[in-house]
């Protein structure tokens, strides 16, 4: 292989990123070469910043999906994703390769989202507005017959977003990871850097906090 140039990246399995690293050998034959994540990371660490692009392309959907759990505005979501990738690039030296790159990146993403929640904590109180008519109707249906209130209704989706937006940053993070993404306590501990007992304590408090918010909504509506 004498010289090569990068073209379009195409995500494949978890450990391989296939992309057209077109290489010309001594016979003048041009052939695409697949490089693994480890090779890409090693290349980035050696100063080849362009090798970072296939990683960005492969894992951005996961980063965006995670960011959308914690931020509502598309501008904020993009800011979070951008921050994640800039941090990933700057801290790539700390990636030791013992665990998959995806796990390391998800830790970084979750922690960046948590930082985002903490920095926007002041907006939390102001964010809660009165229930809209469809949300009101959904709650009425639930109050009369819990089974009849559909989980797929837009009103329910909006209501859950409103309730989650009212939670404190640690409560929102732990509820999202534990009860929505259904991760184990150990996994959450690894993702957040909190100890296992701390995760349990925060989960207990988060559930109580959520019940309190729901009680406030119910009180405002039915009492």
């Amino acid at each position, binding site marked *: 292989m004498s010289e090569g140039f990068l073209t379009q990246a195409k995500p494949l399995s978890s450990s391989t990123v296939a992309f057209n690293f077109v290489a010309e050998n001594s016979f003048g034959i041009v052939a695409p070469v697949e490089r693994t994540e480890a090779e890409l990371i090693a290349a980035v660490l050696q100063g080849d910043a362009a090798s970072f692009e296939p990683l960005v392309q492969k894992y951005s959907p996961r980063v965006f999906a995670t960011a959308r759990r914690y931020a509502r505005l598309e501008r904020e979501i993009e800011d979070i994703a951008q921050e994640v990738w800039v941090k990933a690039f700057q801290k790539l030296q700390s990636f030791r390769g013992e665990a998959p790159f995806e796990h390391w990146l998800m830790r970084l993403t979750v922690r960046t989202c948590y930082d985002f929640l903490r920095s926007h904590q002041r907006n939390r109180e102001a964010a809660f507005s009165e229930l809209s008519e469809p949300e009101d109707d959904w709650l009425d249906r639930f109050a009369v017959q819990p089974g009849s209130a559909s989980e797929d209704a837009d009103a329910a989706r909006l209501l*859950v977003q409103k309730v989650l937006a009212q939670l404190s940053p640690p409560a929102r993070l732990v509820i999202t990871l534990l009860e929505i993404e259904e991760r184990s306590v150990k996994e959450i501990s690894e993702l957040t850097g909190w100890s296992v007992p701390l995760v349990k304590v925060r989960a207990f408090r988060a559930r109580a906090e959520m019940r309190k918010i729901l009680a406030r909504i119910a009180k405002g509506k039915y009492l």
Partner: protein
Amino acid sequence: MDLEQLRQKLLATARANPPEDHVPYAFEKRIMANLSSKPALDFRALWARAMWRAAAPCVGLSLLLGAWSLFTANDTTASESLSQDFEQAMLAVVDQTEETW
């Protein structure tokens, strides 16, 4: 209304509706452009910059303290020279020992 049931229902709603994972068009190009425009962290340069920033306040503070000590010096207790003061301070322990003997 059963609040725990409502909580479970809302969480089930959130589970049933995972967020989208679409990425804005050419996002990776923007990231790469952003990364290439950001200079690499040079810790030596950062340290030098911090030192230069600290230099002015340090000079200011030392001038202020110098002026303060100059103008508030008590002339009545001051000795004739600095060397005498220094010698006295250094030999204070010896003097005390001699007195106790």
